[in-house]
Each structure stands twice: as structure tokens, then as C-alpha cells.
């Protein structure tokens, strides 16, 4: 850590540092683009993965916190860039360094109104284009008169804007057309069976071949980050089931770890084991559902029922212990909400007994099928470099050869002491992404097998204060959700609710990369590729 600090200080004397769990670098905006380039390209630093950009309103100034990670050394760093201008805040874009930054910066622009100079696409990301104000600013007026419920169709624009800086430092607004006049644009979504939710792809096609996709989201944006700022810490937990509804346990886990870290609470081994068991069961269920719906998208409807059979069994286990089949609300600060059901161990063992047979059947029925091979192999290839640059984590990233499993790179909870393999394929096509998920189901089963016979005794939830107040500070925690790395960033001023709670979901990068990897393929391949990335729309929109 000190080494990194020295290196940066030598190159950029104007940088100041704040210690913490993760080193934070303060840099003026003028130097930020150079620092970003240095951080990524220097061989000893190699911060090639931009985890997220956290827009911030510190009342006296606006700014961003960039969370970076090195895929080579597994180190993390935060960079803080601020501007004191409140009327027209501007920061330099890093979209040429990390490709995912284009979309992350759009999100910050949407919520804070910070304009990123040289970003090629400065539109709102989630809110409608006529939205007044920037909701995550602290002085945002929430009165409904400002943004009445629209009674007309939403206005659409076929252009985007870019703020380009010339040599003299003058910033000029440019208008860029999204599609060419001769393009035949097909609207896939927001209501479409293959988008798995309300997401819209405006697809320019040439016959059956895709030329360009404009990804348009925000139809189920609920402003969870904004809502959290008005809630107490335990209340914020309940939103975690409502993003990626298959990774509810994982997201709870992430936020719980972050709060426990901040409060200095040590939880019992029993609670940790229960959390990990639930995470892995949920992972199997999620991958089962992925496989089923994916096959259904490809026209093999029957597979859906074979995979749902296993998922149903897992949901029954969950229902007995958590009391719910979908929004579990199981994790809480200090442990879990209730103890395990008395039949839990028996039920899980029954599941483990049938799982290998089912996995074999999936492989025979679908993966080995000649039509499936023709549809999946060499379709939607994502290279190793692009996977990192576009921030594609989770099974999709690992299928491109990027070992990005947070359980291995930044072990949390008891994962460090468990024996399981990180499955990594190098093909990067849709087939690799599909096969990888099946292999991960086996690995999850391996973890469950290790834990199910020795769940330690102890309390399932330790005593925590009635009113939870986090000390002043900032925390960042990542976990491996079903679809990739999920991060939470909390900033606290010592009060009972967070100043800023940023959720960095894995699905936004996944949906964002669709345009890049579908170009030149057929319309039918859009379904194949989109399905194999397995994004969940509520997770994108939040």
C-alpha cells in the first residue's frame, strides 16, 4: 500500500492521500486523466478494472470516487476527484481508458448533473430525458410538482451529446446522431420475451444482421440509492432482495459485512456458515433458472421444466427457513433473522443427491445437442481485455479467461478456508458462458457438501445496539453474486442513516457490453448473447 502511495506521490506531487481500509487518492480534475492513464498503464500498479464510479455531493463540492482494482495484484484503490463549481460541474472523462466508464459516467450525470468532458455519450441513463433536477444532489427538490406523472408519451431523441474540449480548454457541446438515416431500426423491448424484463434495445439491422444496438434502460428505476439516504441502516437491508432477485442472499451478505465492518461487530461462526450455505444454494438456483430460461429463449422449452424442478427444491428449502421464496430478507446486522429449520440438513442432502443426475441430464440434453452447439459456439466472443475494460465480472467474465471470482480474489466471510475451484474458461463465447455456469453449480454443491455436516452450534445472531449508528468514514465491500461482483460503498457522517449508499451491481456492465459483442451477428444471436450474459433488469435499474 505504501509502495503504491510513494509511486503516485512521485509522479503526481499534487495528490494527497487518505488512509483507510482502501487507500484513497485526492487529485485535482486537471491531473485526473493523466493519473488514470498512469494507474492503468504502469506495470507495477496495473489498475485495469474500474469497479464503479460513485458520484458524490459533499454539499460544498461535487465529485466522484472511482473504485479501481488490479486484476494482476488483486489490490484496490479509490480516487477522489472533486469540483467546487455547483452551477455547471464538470470533470474530465476517463471513458477512453476504461470502456465501462462511458456508462458509469452517464449514471453520475443522470443523478448529479456532473458533465464529463470528452465522454462520447452524455445522455441520461435511467431517468426520462425531460426529468427536472438531479435527484441525488442534496439540494434536490422532491416536490411532485417538479416532475408530475406524465400523461403523454415520453419524448424520444435520436441524438446524443458530447462535451468536447479543444486545446485552449474551451468546452463545446456537440450533437451526435445515434443512428444513420438509412438504418432500419427495430425496437427490441421494453416488452419483449427475450429481454428478461423491461429493457430496450434499439437495434439497427441490415437484413438479419445487427449493425448497432442502443441500450436504453430505466423503466423500473426505483431510486434505491436515494431512498436509502432517508432510511436507517437496518431498513436499507430490505432493498437488497429487490435488485437481483436471485442474488438476494448475496446482496444482503455484502451490506451486512460492510455494516459489521464499520461497527466492529464479530459474528458467530454459525451465522457465517448459514450465510455461505444460503449464498451457494441461491447460486445453484439462479444458475438453474438461467439455464432453463436460456434454453427456452433458444426454443428448447422442455429444459425449463427440468431445471425448475431443481430450483423448486431449493426454494422449498429456503421457504422453510426464511419464510419466503423470493424476497428472503434473511441476513441482518449481526447474523441472520431466524435459525435454520430443523429439516434443513435433511432437505439439503436430498438436493445434493439429485443434483449430479440432473446436471448430467442438462449436459446430455442441451450442451451436447448439435443444434445447441451450432447456436452457441463462437457466438458473441468477448476477449479477455474487453471483459476487463467493460467490467464484465461473474461467470461471463470468467468465461473470457478473467479469474474474477471475488470469493477467491478478495475472500470474505469463511470462503478463504473452503476448498473449491474457480472455474475459468478461455473461449469467451456463449457456449463457454453456459458451460461455466453448469460447472459452477457443481462447485457450489462442493462447498455445501463441506459445510452441511458441520454447521457449528452457537447463536445465529449476535447482540447489536438497538439504534445503529455508523462511525464517520467510508467502506467498500464486494461479494460474488450470482451474476458477478456486487459492490456496496457507504459513506457515513455518524448519523443513523447513510450519507451515501452506492450499489455497484454486476448487471449494468453486462447489459452495456451487448452492443460491443453483437455487432455483425444475426438478430437470433442477440437473444443467444443477451441470454448468455444473464443480466437481470431490476439490478441494472435499481
Amino acid at each position, binding site marked *: 500500500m505504501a509502495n503504491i502511495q510513494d509511486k503516485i506521490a512521485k509522479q503526481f506531487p499534487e495528490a494527497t492521500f487518505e488512509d483507510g481500509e482502501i487507500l484513497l487518492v485526492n487529485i485535482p480534475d486537471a491531473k485526473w486523466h493523466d493519473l488514470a492513464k498512469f494507474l492503468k498503464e504502469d506495470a507495477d500498479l496495473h489498475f485495469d478494472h474500474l469497479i464503479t464510479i460513485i458520484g458524490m455531493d459533499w454539499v460544498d463540492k461535487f465529485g466522484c470516487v472511482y473504485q479501481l482494482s488490479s486484476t494482476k495484484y488483486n489490490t484496490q484503490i479509490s480516487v477522489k476527484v472533486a469540483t467546487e463549481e455547483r452551477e455547471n460541474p464538470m470533470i474530465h472523462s476517463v471513458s477512453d481508458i476504461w470502456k465501462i466508464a462511458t456508462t458509469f459516467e452517464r449514471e453520475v450525470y443522470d443523478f448529479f448533473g456532473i458533465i464529463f468532458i470528452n465522454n462520447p455519450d452524455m445522455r441520461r441513463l435511467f431517468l426520462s430525458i425531460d426529468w427536472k433536477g438531479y435527484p441525488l444532489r442534496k439540494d434536490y427538490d422532491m416536490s411532485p410538482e417538479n416532475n408530475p406523472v406524465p400523461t403523454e408519451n415520453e419524448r424520444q431523441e435520436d441524438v446524443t451529446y458530447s462535451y468536447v474540449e479543444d486545446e485552449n480548454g474551451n468546452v463545446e457541446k456537440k450533437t451526435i446522431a445515434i443512428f444513420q438515416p438509412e438504418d*432500419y431500426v*427495430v*425496437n427490441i423491448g421494453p416488452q*419483449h*420475451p*427475450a429481454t428478461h424484463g423491461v429493457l430496450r434495445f434499439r437495434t439497427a439491422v441490415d437484413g*438479419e444482421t445487427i449493425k448497432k444496438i442502443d441500450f436504453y434502460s430505466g423503466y423500473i428505476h426505483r431510486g434505491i440509492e436515494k431512498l436509502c439516504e432517508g432510511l436507517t441502516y437496518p431498513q436499507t437491508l430490505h432493498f437488497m432482495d429487490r435488485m437481483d432477485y436471485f442474488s438476494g442472499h448475496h446482496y444482503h451478505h455484502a451490506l451486512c459485512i460492510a455494516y459489521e465492518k464499520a461497527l466492529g461487530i464479530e459474528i458467530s461462526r454459525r451465522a457465517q456458515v448459514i450465510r455461505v450455505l444460503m449464498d451457494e444454494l441461491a447460486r445453484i438456483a439462479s444458475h438453474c433458472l438461467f439455464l432453463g430460461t436460456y*434454453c*427456452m*429463449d*433458444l*426454443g*428448447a*422449452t*422442455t429444459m*425449463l*421444466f*427440468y431445471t425448475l*424442478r431443481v430450483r423448486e427444491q431449493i426454494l422449498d428449502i429456503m421457504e422453510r427457513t426464511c419464510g419466503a421464496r423470493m424476497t428472503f430478507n434473511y441476513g441482518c446486522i449481526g447474523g441472520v433473522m431466524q435459525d435454520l429449520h430443523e429439516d434443513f440438513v435433511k432437505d439439503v442432502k436430498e438436493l445434493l443427491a439429485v443434483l449430479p443426475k440432473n446436471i448430467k441430464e442438462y449436459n446430455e*440434453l*442441451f450442451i451436447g*445437442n448439435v*443444434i*445447441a452447439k*451450432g*447456436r452457441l459456439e463462437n457466438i458473441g466472443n468477448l476477449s479477455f481485455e474487453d471483459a476487463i475494460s467493460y467490467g464484465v465480472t461473474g461467470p461471463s467474465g470468467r468465461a473470457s479467461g478473467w479469474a474474477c471470482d471475488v470469493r477467491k480474489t478478495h475472500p470474505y466471510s469463511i470462503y478463504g478456508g473452503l476448498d473449491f475451484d474457480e472455474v475459468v474458461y478461455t473461449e469467451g463465447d456463449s457456449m463457454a458462458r453456459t458451460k461455466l455456469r453448469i460447472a459452477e453449480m457443481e462447485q457450489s454443491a462442493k462447498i455445501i457438501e463441506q459445510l452441511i455436516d458441520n454447521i457449528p452450534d452457537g447463536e445465529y445472531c449476535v447482540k447489536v445496539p438497538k439504534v445503529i449508528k455508523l462511525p464517520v468514514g467510508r467502506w467498500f465491500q464486494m461479494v460474488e453474486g450470482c451474476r458477478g461482483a456486487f459492490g456496496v460503498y457507504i459513506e457515513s457522517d455518524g448519523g443513523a442513516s447513510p450519507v451515501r449508499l452506492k450499489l455497484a451491481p454486476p448487471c449494468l456492465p453486462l447489459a452495456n457490453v451487448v452492443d460491443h459483442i453483437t455487432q455483425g451477428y*444475426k*438478430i*437470433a*444471436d*442477440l*437473444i443467444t448473447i443477451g441470454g448468455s450474459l444473464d443480466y437481470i433488469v431490476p439490478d441494472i435499474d435499481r
Partner: protein
Amino acid sequence: MYDLSIITNWIHELLLSVMPGWLATTIECVAIGVALLLVYALLALFYIYFERKVCAAFQCRLGPNRVGPLGLLQSFADMFKMLIKEIITLKNVDRFLFALAPYLVIIASMLSFSVLPWGNGLQIIDFNIGIFFLIAVSSIGVLGILLAGWSSNNKFTLIGALRSGAQMVSYELSIGLSVLTMVAFAGTMSVTGIVEAQKDLWFIFSGHIPAIIAFVIYLVAGTAETNRGPFDLPEAESELTAGYHTEYSGMHFGFFYLAEYLNLFIVSGVAALLFFGGWMPLHIPGWEGFNEIMDYIPSVLWFIIKAIVISFVIIWFKWTFPRLRIDQLLNLEWKYLLPINLFNLVLMVLVIVYGLHF
């Protein structure tokens, strides 16, 4: 074997004895038309029920089981619902073509329906180019689909229609060539003639290798021709919502739906005719006793059961395989099926010329 033509001739004579010839023919035409429509509708309803039950069995489900015993009345209820639904007319569509399209599709399927060999002496139209007529009228269906896709003024339907056009025109070739192979073997294009030629042994046995190849190709091409999975690209719901019939509602949609199921029956029926003897019972040369027993089973039953068994295989495809992509679909036809088919035709001719068949 009961020859049902005795009954039909008797009715004809009876009518002639009380009225002039033109009136008798008119009455017969109307009666047959009504009977065909009834059989058509009932078969479609049966097929809807059959497919749902079969698919449920594949998917570890029960299928329809609430309306009537074993859910038998489910498809009647569905049909009734379809009949009372409003037919929505959309803005900015080509009204005339939009309304015409479903009728074209259903007329094509009904015309081909009438050529099928229902039973011994139950041939509705029996003329010397029967099978040629069948192929000709069944091709009208693609026009209906193209019109439906075009006139709906919707990008999804248009893409569906284009896919459908490419697919059906291509696979028509395979169907034509495999039918041609069997016609060469039978030496006649008349439907009755083809059935009669299988009196001793069904073509799939007597024609051995080339007949089996032709059957496999026919089955693949027939599945593609009826737009069923794994070749259901024109209506690929996960890509094009519902393809060419996205914008149709009520009975107009019902026509597409009916025609699709009936085309399944027609394709299976033609397969039964060309390879499994049509209504001809299973006869094995030399086994006189066995042949006698087989003759006791009515010929109508023979035909319908054969068709349903072949349909079952096609339904089995649909619920097992994923869908192909359009370029893979066309590759399969032009690069594999067509050359194999041409080769197979030559092989069949050699078999006939040298008398290598049974």
C-alpha cells in the same frame, strides 16, 4: 377390406334416381364440403389437445385437466373463446391484404386436406396428378404468410414473413424431390395409384435404402414446411414475439393457428401415404392369415393412426430441440438436404431400373 366406394356409389345412384344429374352433383359437393369442414375443425381441436398432452408428458406436467374429463373439452373451450373474441383492426395496415392473408393460409391447407387418402374408396378428389396438385396447393400457404407479415406494417412481422418466405421456398424443394423419388418408385402420381402400389408391402420396406433416406428428408423438410420447432423461426417467440401473426386477433389469429395444426396432420398424412401405404393395412407377403386379420381393421383407422404416429414424432422434435438460426437453416437445406436428395433420386432410379427392390 371394406370398399367404401360401394356406399358412396349407392348414395350417388340414389340421388340420381330422384333428381337430375347437376343437382345431385351439387348436393354431393355441398355435403362433402360440410363434412370436410367438420373433420377439419375436429381434427384441429384434437391436435391442439394432443400436442398439449404430449408436451406436458415431456415436461413432467399433467397438461389440460380441468375442463371436462381429462381436460378433453379444453380445446373446445379455447375455440369458443377464440370465436367470440373481437377482431381488432389496426391503424395504418393494408386492410384488404391484412384480412385476406388468414383466408389464403386456411384455404391452402383445406385444399391439400381434401387430397388425402382417407380410406378405401374414400378419395374425395381422385385424379391422375393428385400428389402434384397437393404440392401445388400447399404452396399457396406461403403467400398468406408473406402477405400477413407485409400488410401488418410491423417490423417484427415483416422479418418473420421474410424468414418464412426464405424457409418455405427452400424446403419446398426438398419436399418436392423426396416426393418425386417416391412417385418414381410408384410409377404414378395418382393418390389411389400410390396406395394400390403398396398393396403387398409398404414403400418404406420395399424401397429400402432410398425410401428410408427420402423419408428422413421428407420428415425434416415437412417439419420446416409447417413452421414447427426446431424450424419455427418465422414465429420465433423469443426473437420476434410471434412473427408474422403478431398483429392478428380473434378468429383471424385462429385461422393461422388451425392451419398450423392441420398442416401438421397433412404433412404426416402425406408421409403416411408415400411411405406407409396410406390407408393400406400392414401386409407382409406370404403371411396370408396375418394379412387377413389386418384387413379387419377399418382403412380409415389405419390412415388416421399412421398420421398421428408420425405427428407424434414431429411434436417430439419440437419439444426437444432448440431452434436453428436462419443461416443455419438455409445451409442445412442448400448444402446438405438438396444434394443428398438429388443423389437419392438417382439411387432410386437405379433401384427401379435394375429391379433391386422387394
